[in-house]
């Protein structure tokens, strides 16, 4: 209280820090960015949301008029329906059962999809294309994602619309109440084919299938490393290997489907514990 001419606006306390705020004439509260680039949430955003909710509600009232929720006979362990189908969003995975054993189709592959999706932000280090639909500056990312998405939807469409009795392939114009003859082609394991065609011992053929499966991954890992060196160096060792593991495992799915459809191969690798 020494200086009486300038009365303090607040008690001075050396332990506190004081800030100075400026009041300017204006209409809008804003932070960090100039207010011209923004609009009030009320009404501009709130009314868009309101219209979207209104629209969705109308759709949800009209749809039941067109088609109601199904209800079949009461559950009975005595009658097994044919085909037995999972809910539509899991039919892609059920369709994979044609090509893979249940532990892969039902557990490991979906698990890898989930983990693979989670690591996406950490392996895609391209800073381009935030906040815009940008294909030209992130072609690889967009292609990879859309490829996986296409696989997911194609298997679902096949499972929902093209699989009938005994999980056989039925076209929409086929008679869906008639059983199809089981395919006359029998599926053979890769190691059996190699043993028969090249006169190898069964154990040698089995060892070679390990090599082939390993080579599938090894070649996949090596090509970008050799020919797209910038790509590898940008990602670094850990990110690169993580990314390539998920990428090649995704590619394993169409690969296995292809060798099944073209060469009737049942398993490409047989180990004492599991088969792929």
């Amino acid at each position, binding site marked *: 209280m020494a200086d009486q001419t300038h009365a303090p606006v607040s008690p001075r306390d050396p332990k506190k820090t004081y800030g100075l705020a400026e009041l300017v004439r204006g*209409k*809008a*509260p*804003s932070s960090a960015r100039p207010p011209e*680039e*923004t*609009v*009030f*949430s*009320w*009404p*501009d*955003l*709130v009314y*868009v949301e309101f219209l*979207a909710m209104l629209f*969705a509600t109308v759709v*949800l*009232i009209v*749809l*039941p008029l067109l088609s*109601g*929720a*199904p*209800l*079949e006979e*009461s*559950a*009975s*362990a005595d*009658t097994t329906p044919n085909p*037995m*189908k*999972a*809910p539509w*969003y*899991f039919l892609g*995975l*059920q369709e994979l059962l044609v090509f893979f054993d*249940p*532990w892969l*189709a*039902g*557990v*490991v592959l979906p698990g890898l999809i989930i983990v693979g*999706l*989670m690591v996406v*932000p950490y392996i*895609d280090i391209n*800073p381009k294309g*935030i*906040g*815009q*639909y*940008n294909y030209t500056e992130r072609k690889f990312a*967009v292609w990879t*994602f859309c490829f996986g*998405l296409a696989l997911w939807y194609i298997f679902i469409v096949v499972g929902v619309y093209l699989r009938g009795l005994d999980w056989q392939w039925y076209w929409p114009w086929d008679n869906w109440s008639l059983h199809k003859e089981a395919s006359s082609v029998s599926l053979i394991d890769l190691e059996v084919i190699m043993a028969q065609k090249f006169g190898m011992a069964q154990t040698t053929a089995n060892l070679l299938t390990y090599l082939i499966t390993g080579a599938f991954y090894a070649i996949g890992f090596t090509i970008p490393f050799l020919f797209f060196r910038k790509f590898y160096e940008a990602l670094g060792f850990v990110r690169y290997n993580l990314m390539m593991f998920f990428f090649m495992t995704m590619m394993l799915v169409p690969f296995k489907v292809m060798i099944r459809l073209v060469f009737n191969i049942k398993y490409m690798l047989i180990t004492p*514990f*599991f088969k792929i």
Partner: protein
Amino acid sequence: MTGLIEKLRQQIVSTQVWRSIFRHGYPDTDLNRALVMFSNVILHLHPVRVKRGALKIRYTWCLGGLTFFMFIILTITGVFLMFYYVPDTRRAYNDIKDLQYVVYFGNLMRDMHRWAAHAMVFLVWLHMTRVFLTGAYKPPREFNWIVGVMLLVLTLILSWTGYLLPWDQLALWAITVGSKMAEATPVIGVSGPFGLQMGMRPDNDIRFMLLGGTVVGQSALLRFYVLHCVGLPLLAGVFMAVHFWRIRKDGFSGPL
């Protein structure tokens, strides 16, 4: 007459009760438009101001918001259905029949619940695709993408657990197919790789835990019911809270 109404309105809005509930006037001034976001618990999910780009329908397609709206519709119709449904294998199917033919608006509620569930699954996928294509998972939003993937998984499990409840042939066998997959889980499933070596049996593996038995029966119905109506929605609610919170913290990704 209009003078009388205006006087009455003034009377009402100046009462202590009114002012204790509504802390500010109608949001037609800048101040009130800001205050409405501060003082309303639902609206405060929004910031006071948003980037112009956030309003572009052709950027977001409203997909995330619509997914959340499906969740709300599912909660409302689901609570309605819970009044008429008992998860007992002896009467569950008949309860659904009652909802279809006896209960007023029962059929509409059930149909809306079904359609909204389908829509929610599909909208989550579309929302994720949109977020990927606009690079909205890139820094600083990596963590929110993970939360989003968790919500995707929760949505699928929610839908799947609900699939069993009508207790018809469709339900029983769809869940039977699904739980067969669980049996094949490596290490913790009886027919999965290394399952037998780990001492798994049909009555102690992961499928048994899921179903509460070796077949889809009463225990499975009760488990799925409790998870579908209480456990998973609560969990999804927590993840949604984090999801929306992070959008507020990290800011909207879109263009200006």
